[in-house]
């Protein structure tokens, strides 16, 4: 049937964009909160700032049900194998946001205990700087990730 004869309530799109649109609004998060940034993150996910608006309101406390890993806080060398294993347990497609100076780069800790950024352990999609970041910045990070998901080629 030629396209111009389609009725008004039918929209055409590309499969990639359609799946990206769906995935970007159903981010189930696993919150790996280890330090002070996690306090800030609590206010982000509570009703005042409300990650629900972005379809990211569903914290799953099992990595097998999550597709967005939020690293919120300092990562120590003692913890590194745990974080790595959690990331490996998540099923594809999976995305990682590093929240706070510590998770981005080690922050002001440069010593025997601290990993210099979560990306030394697992690949990270979005970096949110700040110590701690303002809630608006974390929301901005989630929106940046949604943008990225919508624009990438979807692996099926």
């Amino acid at each position, binding site marked *: 049937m030629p396209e111009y004869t389609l009725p008004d309530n039918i929209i055409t799109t590309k499969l990639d964009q359609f799946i990206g649109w769906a995935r970007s609004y159903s981010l189930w998060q696993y919150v790996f909160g280890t330090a002070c940034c996690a306090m800030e993150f609590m206010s982000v996910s509570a009703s005042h700032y409300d990650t629900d608006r972005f379809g990211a309101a569903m914290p799953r406390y099992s990595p097998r049900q999550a597709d967005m890993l939020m690293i919120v806080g300092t990562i120590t*060398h*003692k913890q*590194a194998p745990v974080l*790595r294993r959690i990331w490996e347990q998540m099923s594809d497609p999976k995305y990682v946001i590093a929240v706070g100076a510590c998770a981005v780069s080690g922050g002001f800790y440069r*010593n*025997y*205990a601290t990993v210099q950024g979560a990306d*030394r*352990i697992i*690949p990270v999609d979005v970096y949110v700087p700040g110590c701690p970041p303002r809630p608006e910045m974390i929301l901005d990070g989630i929106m940046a990730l949604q943008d990225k998901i919508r624009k990438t080629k979807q692996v099926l």
Partner: protein
Amino acid sequence: MQQYWLLKDDLPDIFQQFPAISYNEEFGQGTFRIAATDLGKIFDFLKTHKSYPMDMLTDITAVDYLSGDYAERPNLTGREEDLYSESRYDLVYHFYSVSKNKRIRIIASCGGENPAVISSYKWWQAAHFLEREVWDMFGIKFENHPDLRRVLLYEEFEGHPLRKDYPTMGEQPRIPLRNPEHDNA
């Protein structure tokens, strides 16, 4: 203002029992410095003291004076031969008398190739974790401690990070680390 710290005049008997003790006072807080070999005796003394029984051990920590920047240790200058100096570390004990609301600070020096002192676990069970922490961070052994393992760091960790001769940025990763600039997944 009520005086919370035990000063020289509150404890005349400590000077009789331990003639080698030295005392100094700053900011209204007294510090009693004794020889590490006397620690066992002073634990007995404090725990069973008649007027101020110290029934609570609030903290044990240590100080490493290796680097020679301290007026307290003019003989240590951070040289290689100072590594095993007998007075390299200060052990700092804080005790509290719950019934009398008084505190006391005891300091003892130790050092040598394998620094070791007697454990205070027999007198105060709070010493269990505190001494494990000092062992973890400074490598000072406590003899007769029931279970002297690392408490904060992982078992594979080599060395003791709060020693002044531990490299400032000496990381010991447990898993191979990525180099994000070169291998982006």
